């Protein structure tokens, strides 16, 4: 995926894939909502160096159906 080739990715497809990967057990990439409100996928090794809401834990909460 493209975010493995760059430090951050923000395309909606990249973001969607990160959420799916998190549910599937891939912890290599995390989601951050930065101060501009942008949702970005970053390598886990860089998460602690970034400001913003760590959205991964919230994203991993299951959505319910109906």
């Amino acid at each position, binding site marked *: 995926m493209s975010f493995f080739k760059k430090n951050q990715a*923000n*395309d*909606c*497809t990249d*973001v*969607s*894939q990160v*959420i*799916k990967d998190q*549910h599937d057990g891939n912890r290599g990439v995390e*989601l951050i*909502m930065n101060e501009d*409100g*942008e*949702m*970005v996928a970053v390598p886990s090794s860089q998460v602690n160096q970034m400001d913003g*809401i760590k*959205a991964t834990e*919230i*994203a991993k*909460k*299951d*959505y*319910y*159906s*109906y």
Partner: protein
Amino acid sequence: MTEERLKDEFYLLSQAFSVKQFKLTSNTLTIALQTNSKKIYTVRIDLAEHPYAVPKVFITSPKPLCDRLGNALLNASHPMHTLTGENGCTRICHYGPSQWHPGVYLYQVVVKVRIWLEVYENHLKTGYPLDKYLSTAPER
């Protein structure tokens, strides 16, 4: 909602979002969310029973949201993670009743809505339903 809880909610929301983005009262949270593609959505969260029950979350603009084929998202749909809409507004799923507890704060709900919107835009782009990416709690 108590005054103390309202203050806590405001504080936490203001840490995650600009105060210019939202308006919070004891009954309603209205917030404008911009996705990564720079599209802006307006979201209303009904707080009548907050924090003791799962709040209803509506997209009030665009009204209604439409799927990739142009159909209004006003029906309950498992693949699209929506509930039956009200007043022409799309209602989206977020936390389930068994996951909900009074310790869940509104900023967490809004972050889930923000994620829902990204996956919704991915649906418009690719055609994949939202449940391909957003896992579903086992309850109904």
